[in-house]
């Protein structure tokens, strides 16, 4: 549905997007994840035809952004970063205006407008001036104007900034629901948000895509060593050496006594081997008591930090 080929964008001498290519199929919810200034918003602004690429091409349903941009714009509902709105207009007039501008038809469909206002939880503030609304409500108005013409593609740039935790969960659920029938691009620097809503993640750093896949795929491919931490009580004198002799244990990261006869140990095991069973058996043989054992998996957060940290 959306195809981006070798997209590059310079702002003056500054490279913002560096030779990026990807395809987005119809009906997926794609998360653009990256730190601030990574090029997410720039990419999105090019897809929405706000900016032109320095080189490369973007097509939406085989329409090119340079030559058939009006066709593309009709299909897109866009919420720019920080949800810019007209403070002096009232909510319902604004939504009506945006629908008319987007559809280019005379009949403002009252039913659809009411529906969108309800979906976005704006029922109580329809008559208010946008300038009087709180940040959370303004964000919802921004979302409502992106939805009002029932677009095939929804592009949301940081849609949950400034919302309280309850509102964030509401918006996320809404995005998930919309993702069943629409193609959604969600820009965010908040991981749990992307993890919770998207079925595909593109991690962008310094203008390039550094990872691409479902949240699960990314987790598996970047999973390195398994980390295990245990607390063992009794007979702790030679425990370290015994643990090291177990199959798959690579090294002991940290071993420190808690009190007189409890030892807390952090271990690293080779990828694909789960040594928890043998650790348990060792404790039984050694007549020690296993107080606690947990395995830590690499989270998407670790991957993200690993990929986007500039000093690495």
């Amino acid at each position: 549905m959306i195809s981006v080929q070798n997209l590059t964008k310079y702002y003056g001498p500054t490279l913002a997007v560096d030779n990026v290519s990807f395809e987005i199929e119809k009906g997926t919810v794609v998360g653009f994840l990256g730190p601030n200034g990574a090029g997410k918003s720039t990419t999105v602004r090019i897809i929405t035809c706000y900016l032109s690429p320095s080189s490369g091409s973007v097509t939406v349903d085989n329409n090119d952004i340079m030559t058939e941009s009006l066709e593309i714009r009709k299909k897109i509902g866009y919420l720019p970063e920080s949800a810019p709105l007209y403070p002096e207009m009232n909510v319902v007039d604004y939504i009506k205006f945006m629908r008319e501008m987007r559809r280019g038809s005379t009949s403002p469909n009252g039913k659809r407008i009411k529906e969108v206002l309800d979906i976005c939880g704006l029922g109580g503030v329809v008559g208010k001036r946008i300038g009087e609304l709180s940040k959370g409500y303004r964000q919802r108005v921004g979302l409502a104007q992106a939805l009002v013409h029932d677009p095939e593609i929804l592009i949301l740039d940081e849609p949950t900034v400034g919302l309280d935790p309850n509102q964030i969960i509401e918006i996320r659920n809404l995005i998930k629901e919309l993702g069943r029938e629409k193609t959604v691009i969600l820009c965010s620097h908040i991981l749990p948000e992307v993890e919770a809503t998207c079925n595909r993640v593109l991690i962008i750093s310094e203008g390039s895509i550094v990872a691409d896949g479902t949240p699960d795929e990314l987790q598996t491919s970047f999973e390195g060593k398994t980390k295990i931490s245990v607390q063992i009580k009794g007979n702790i004198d030679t425990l370290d050496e015994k643990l090291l002799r177990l199959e798959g244990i690579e090294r002991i990261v940290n071993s420190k006594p808690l009190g007189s006869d409890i030892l807390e140990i952090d271990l690293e095991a080779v990828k694909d081997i789960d040594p928890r069973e043998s650790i348990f058996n060792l404790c039984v043989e050694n007549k020690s008591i296993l107080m606690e054992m947990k395995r830590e998996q690499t989270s998407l957060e670790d991957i993200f930090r690993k990929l986007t940290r500039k000093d690495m």
Partner: protein
Amino acid sequence: MHQILTLAKKEFRSYFDSPVAYVVITLFLLISGWQFSTTLFLSNTADLRTLFGIIRFILLFFIPALSMRLISEEKRLGTIELLMTLPIKDWQLILGKFLAAYLLVIITILLTLVHYVTIASLGEPDFGATVGGYLGLILVVGVYLSIGIFTSCLTHNQIVAFIVSFVIIFIFFIIDKVIIFFPGFIGNLLEFLSTDYHFNNVARGVIDTRNLIYYATMMFLFLFLAVQSLESRKWK
């Protein structure tokens, strides 16, 4: 086409949502009325020529003040991004904004017709010259506004937009008053470029196509520059 009107309607309403329209209309009528009434009995002639002179002078400040926010405000708020990703062309956007502001100014100018009523009760003003004068004003204002909207595209700072458009408008206003220093061809050229020279022709009640072509070209030129400046953002 529908979108141009939708946008124009929204813009026009927004003048009345905020105090802009009321302030502009009131101030304009007060200043022009005051200036007009103080000179009326001194000159002792039943015509609106002095009024037209005053209005043209006041408009030098009023039009930049009105037009400075048209695009720069959108840039400041960031709403330009939404506006420019709507399925409309850039020229439709400019035209929609231009029409809304033009309508407000035309209404304001036509409100001064009360002075015609005053004059008509005191003497017998030349009807043709009055119609010509108002037509001339409306054409001049169109040029001023298109200059204003162009400069508003250049910056997100309203004050800068105001000053730049005032300077450009003032140049076109003053240009036929300095031609005595430039005899011959250059003088004629400068005269032809001036908004006032053409106004004086139209205001005599003789409407020449040369004058109309001049105004149409000027409006088109600056609106065209506005569209170009808006589009240049894409490549920055």
